[in-house]
């Protein structure tokens, strides 16, 4: 027992995610009703969403902020719909055995939330750098579990965290502008600042550090006896659990596929390394990028300048985020959630 309610506000608004109880927001004292659940989800996105508009104000063009917010919202809606759909569809194997799966996949879920509120919560907590959970992600269907995993793989750039979140999306904006800007026949610029070699170096480091940590961490684990010892579910799902653990650590999310016995010296050390580099390895190049951009002269916009507001840029930004995520993780995903899903439905 303790001051749970006050801690909840901090946990959610601060996208911190560490629960008062081990069961986190699945615990009835932390999250008793669908209404409290709604407030918690809203709290996660509240500050990161507002920061987009702050950004627009700071750069002197609110449309820039709206464009970033629009890209985030669109991606959020698509991911939430996928997760909720597959959780509601349930496990086809149980259905074939004559079990009523009308309530969807209820394993590891609270009856007061059901599949929709659980799927939505899982999407939100992983898109933002929160990590609080109101259901057991490990018990989700393969696609339902794929969504939180994929959200973190994108770099938690959709809304992101409070302390360190928006910059992730802005890194992708710089990258999108760099490639697309060339296509209109000008050297690239974002918000009137030229994007040159130094900026690209920093953007590359910041974007690539987390996939590096997640992939190498997973590879090291599946090669060592200590790592393999933690697997409770052999098979493709065991692989997904390890991949989830390192993706969550490298992106500082904190949620887990809890079937993995990760509270061992091996996992603690490995994930600690991933967390440390995953956070500071991004912050340092981002600060360097911010410094060099701030020092640059602002270039006047003309009809020949690529507009970084409006629907075209939103599509471009989403495309860049998804493409970079896919290129990094498709092979790993193919051996984890994808094969789980195909196996489940092939049998069915």
């Amino acid at each position, binding site marked *: 027992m303790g001051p749970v309610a006050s801690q909840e506000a901090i946990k959610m608004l601060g996208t911190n995610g560490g629960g008062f109880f081990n069961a986190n927001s699945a615990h009835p004292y932390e999250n008793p009703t669908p209404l409290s659940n709604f407030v918690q989800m809203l709290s996660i996105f509240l500050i990161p969403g507002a920061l987009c508009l702050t950004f627009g104000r700071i750069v002197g063009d609110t449309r820039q902020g709206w464009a970033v917010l629009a890209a985030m919202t669109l991606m959020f809606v698509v991911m939430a719909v996928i997760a909720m759909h597959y959780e509601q569809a349930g496990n086809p194997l149980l259905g074939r055995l004559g079990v009523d799966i009308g309530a969807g996949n209820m394993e590891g879920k609270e009856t007061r939330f059901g599949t929709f509120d659980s799927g939505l919560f899982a999407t939100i907590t992983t898109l933002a750098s929160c990590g609080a959970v109101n259901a057991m992600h490990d018990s989700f269907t393969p696609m339902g579990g794929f969504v939180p995993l994929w959200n973190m793989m994108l770099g938690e750039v959709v809304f992101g965290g409070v302390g360190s979140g928006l910059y992730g999306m802005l890194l992708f904006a710089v990258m999108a502008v760099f490639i697309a800007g060339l296509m209109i*026949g000008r050297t690239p610029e974002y918000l009137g600042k030229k994007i040159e070699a130094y900026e690209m170096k920093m953007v590359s480091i910041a974007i690539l550090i987390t996939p590096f940590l997640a992939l190498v961490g997973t590879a090291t684990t599946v090669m060592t006896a200590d790592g393999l010892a933690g697997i409770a579910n052999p*098979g493709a799902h065991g692989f997904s659990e390890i991949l989830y653990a390192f993706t969550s650590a490298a992106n500082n999310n904190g949620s887990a596929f809890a079937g993995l016995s990760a509270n061992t010296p091996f996992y603690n050390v490995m994930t600690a390394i991933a967390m440390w580099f995953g956070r500071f390895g991004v912050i340092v190049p981002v600060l360097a990028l911010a410094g060099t951009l701030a020092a640059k002269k602002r270039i006047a916009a003309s009809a020949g300048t690529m*507009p970084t507001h409006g629907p*075209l840029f939103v599509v471009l930004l989403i495309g860049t985020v998804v493409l970079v995520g896919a290129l990094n993780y498709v092979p790993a995903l193919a051996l984890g959630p994808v094969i789980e899903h195909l196996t489940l439905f092939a049998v069915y």
Partner: protein
Amino acid sequence: MSHKSLAMFDPVLVKPAIVDSFCKLNPAVQWRNPVMFVVYVGSLLTTALWVQALGGAADAPAGFILAIALWLWFTVLFANFAEALAEGRSKAQAASLRGLKKETWAKKLKGSHATAEWTTVSATDLHKGDFVLVHAGEIIPADGEVIEGVASVDESAITGESAPVIRESGGDFSAVTGGTRVLSDWIVVRVTANPGETFVDRMIAMVENAKRQKTPNEIALTILLVALTIVFLVVTVTLLPYSMFSVDVSQAGTPISITVLIALLVCLIPTTIAGLLSAIGVAGMSRMMQANVIATSGRAVEAAGDVDVLLLDKTGTITLGNRQASAFLMAERVSEAELADAAQLASLADETPEGRSIVVLAKQKFNLRERDIHALNASFVHFSAHTRMSGVDLGDRQIRKGAAGAISSHVESLGGSFPALVTTLVDEVARRGSTPLVVADGARVLGVVELKDVVKGCIKERFAELRRMGIKTVMITGDNRLTAAAIAAEAGVDDFLAEATPENKLALIRQHQSEGRLVAMTGDGTNDAPALAQADVAVAMNTGTQAAKEAGNMVDLDSNPTKLIEIVETGKQMLMTRGSLTTFSIANDVAKYFAIIPAAFITTYPQLAALNIMHLASPASAILSAVVFNALIIMFLIPLALKGVRYRPLGARVLLRRNLLVYGLGGLVTPFVGIKLIDLIIAGTGLA
């Protein structure tokens, strides 16, 4: 330069390019392109694996490894070929320049005057500050400045323009270029460049790629490409343990082979753009060269694409070089025919373009033919700075034309008076932006000939085009504000600078730059040099002074100021080609994943066949098809890399949407079709 335009795959170029592709297999050359270096290492590794497979120890069939190894080598060779072909085309252009470098002899003077003693030395022994004497028929041995004499010079070797130009000491026509030929008279030239540093040397070095440095944007793009390569290296390396783990837990199949991993890596890294990047840069310079513009650096070509403001000289760029007679405006009790007749007579011997245009106008309006000047017993009075009039004496009849002030004092000296109506006419003409020329017959003022600045045809459309590109045009003129405003409105420029001086030109450039704009300008005179040095893209006319050429970062051999527009388009085209091929290259990876991932793991997880959406025949043919496609696409895109993506003067938004559709969506879809086709061929011929 008289270069015949060579076809894209002309055998003259292709043969040496093929040889060059193999020469470029030198690791030191490959190392310069990090992405292709990875492919190079992959080729070596797979070849080694094949040799090992021949010995019996292999993780894949020897024939399959050989096929992959061969196509990886082809990928490297195709990229080399693209670069070699682009360089070959530039070299062909440089060859005509090289002709200028043949051994020439110079008359080196002991002093700075033509009368000083001279000795014959080789042109290569001349240094900065030496004086040389050049007579008619001789070749000017080095770049320099005329300090004595006047001569007509044939500069066709540099400019392709066959008409000789006059070079004389002092003023804006004193610069001469080594390798050009003096046609008449003699000049004394002070050498301004050391051997190996002359203009022609620099041009050859530029074109031959020997000094080609990566441009800032090319470096930034390379960083992105290297970063992607590193990521894919991590992705493929970690895939081996993942695969081993999967085989372990599912108790089926075999782990992914090293050959397949290398194939996957090469397919994923952005080989298309990396293989063509340097060809795009060389081709950009080459296209400038085709437009007869020599850029002193690739950086300047790139900056041209970013230009926001164009400063254009009025005369020669916006208007035809000369004013032309456009109307006859009569004084009281004078018929237009009478005025035209007198004006024509006064202009018959006037060889200036203005004078000739009066004759032409008179002929158009009243069909007045040129008359036999001897039959008229005419004696011509030429323009002099003293009288500021010209005309003709026919017996005792004096016909004069000139500025209002000059004619006014002329008729008054003859006892006549200057009519008030003519004064009004003169003012009206001036207000329209034209120049009034008053005609008098004896003491009687007949009227005014309006000399109009003629705005070039189609120039208004060009400016509208530039506006759509987001580029602002500013007209620079020495005229007064009134005249300048009238012409600016007619030509459709966005802004103008009247009564321009070198100081306010420089101030205008600085002002635009401080507002964050990139400025381009053209210039030829020495007094343009400070502004040229300040501008971001500065095109010096080849007819201009040495100072102007030194200050600029491009030289237009045709000395055509309108060229600035083409230069901007070429710069944009180069950047667009780079961006489009990068997008295409990255988008291609999606299809390659769909080809290779199911093929690589199907023995472990047969369910992955669901991802084989292209229905490729077998795992081996799927992987091979992806590798073959990856190599062939470089070949297919060589013409695009060399010609460049066409630039259309549309707004940024429209252009981006268009190119995203063509190269982004096209890049997603094309490999699905291509890989499927190659797979059909491979499966059909039973190769794999």
